[in-house]
């Protein structure tokens, strides 16, 4: 389980970095999105993996899930979503103003 999750996060980051280094703003946006997914997953996993630990206290359950990473990841998702939306708007405006979506100028 740990291996699958960490491989998944690693793939997301690798793909994100590759896309961020591309020259078109659309791929940069996609890359940043992938990287923020990876970061969110990473925080989420920071609360340890497991399927039996309940989030609330029940009789007879020793181990409880840590709720804080979930709260953190919610905040992070909201922020990265807003940021990506802004970046898309900005990229569209840059295309409208400069006539090209190349990141480093025509």
């Amino acid at each position, binding site marked *: 389980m740990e291996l699958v999750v960490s491989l998944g996060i690693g793939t997301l980051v690798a793909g*994100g970095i590759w896309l*961020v280094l591309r020259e078109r*703003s659309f791929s*940069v946006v996609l890359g*940043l999105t992938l*990287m*923020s997914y*990876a*970061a*969110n997953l*990473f*925080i989420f*996993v*920071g*609360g*340890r993996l497991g399927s039996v630990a309940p989030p609330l206290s029940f009789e007879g359950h020793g181990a409880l899930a840590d709720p*804080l*990473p979930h709260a*953190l990841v919610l*905040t*992070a998702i909201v*922020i*990265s979503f*807003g*940021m*990506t939306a*802004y*970046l898309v708007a*900005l*990229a569209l*405006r*840059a295309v409208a*103003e*400069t006539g090209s979506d190349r*990141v480093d*100028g025509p």
Partner: protein
Amino acid sequence: MTQLPILPVLVPLVAAILMLALHKAGPVLARGLGFLSVGILALVSVLLLRQADGGTVLVVNLGNWPAPFGIAFVADRLSVLMVSITTLIAIPALLSATGGTDRKGPHFHVFFQMQLAGLNGAFLTGDLFNLFVFFEVLLIASYGLLAHGGGAARARAGMHYVALNLVGSVLFLIALGLLYGMLGTLNLADVAQRLATVPPEDAALVRTALALLVIVFVLKSALMPLGFWLPNAYPAATAPVAALFAVLTKVGVYALLRLSSVSFEAPVAEGLLLPWLMPVALATMAVATMGALAAPRLAVVVAHLLVLSTGILAAAIAVGGVPMLAAMLYYLPHTTLVTAALFLMAGRIAEQRGPAEDRFVRAARLSGTGWLAAGFLALAVAVAGLPPLSGFLGKVMLLTAAPAGAMGYAFWTILIVSGFVAALGLARGASVIFWEPPPESLADTRVPPPAEGAGRRVGALLLAMGFVPALVLGAAPLSAYARATAEQIMARQIYIEAVLPPGRAP
């Protein structure tokens, strides 16, 4: 009054929300609300300064949840100093913006207030995750402010700025996730305590998390390998926005200082920051010095001087110790305020030179050259660190506190050469802007600056230039405050015990 540390965040936040809710009522109301908010901030800053100067560390636990679980706001001397600098710059920046540039696009004042809320929050929070949240708040606001006014240059600079900062945010999140997974807390004071007892098998991951945090802060404060974005981004903004942005890089410096003071004493973090922060800072200073000399526009020169000052501050953090930090905390308000004034000055010059703006080319003659040139001279002398103004005092304090040894000598050399070159770069610009005769075609034309709101823009510039004599006359109390701040930072236990009172069950 015990809730005082939350007010610098709450007041601009409420003002921004009111502006959004009432935006149909017209721009006059937004301006009024903006001034009201900044006025209250000034009052709160004075109250906080008085509290902090007595040596008390004010802590607010939101909802009265005790510290490691709740959200803590901490107002110690350092935080209060940073909040006061922000407020001091916000006053002339807002005044200058109401002179017309705030009408160039919608919602300027909302972004401005959100920027202030984010800055103050970043300075006052005692929790790493909230530091991230406030970083994002101030960044979102700064994206809006940077793009304010429109145009291709702003759109392109904005694109780079946003993309870079988003990568920084992702790294920040990964570092926070790692740190929380390892230590189980993100409260700064709690982190400081738990770092002392990290088991050796976790040490590598904790070091990775701390190193990632440092990289993020280096990016935000535009230190060298990660600082090339700043001289492109800031000069693209309108002058009042660029003036406010002078504080923005200082958030990175503040975060580095805070992190180094709470965590880099721990054995797990040994050798993580200090061995390479000094070379990075020196490289920043060297590159910024060259950039200031090569810049084609006044605002770009000022942006390079801003990077230069960040390098100097980072070098001071790398050296550490009470004398060096005291010198640094005297130099920090000086450099921030003077750079902000210089951005306003560049804006004032640009608006009188028609299409040439503040580029170093021959253009229409400036009107009112006398006082403008005198003010430019004063600011240039202050920022280059020539006697008798505040920059000189700050640099002397830095030089006397520099350690012996190769790094110390390198610091001496680069600091002195950079001051000389900064003076040279500014003099080169001034000789073109003030002295070069206009080209034949423009011999008799003068570009009148936009009349509407000119009084406010000039007033804001005069206000900002007033920082220079104020910094000289207030040098004694300011350096005393800086010294006390440095002592408080170095005695880490004061901060930790204020947030986590001993004797209470964790």
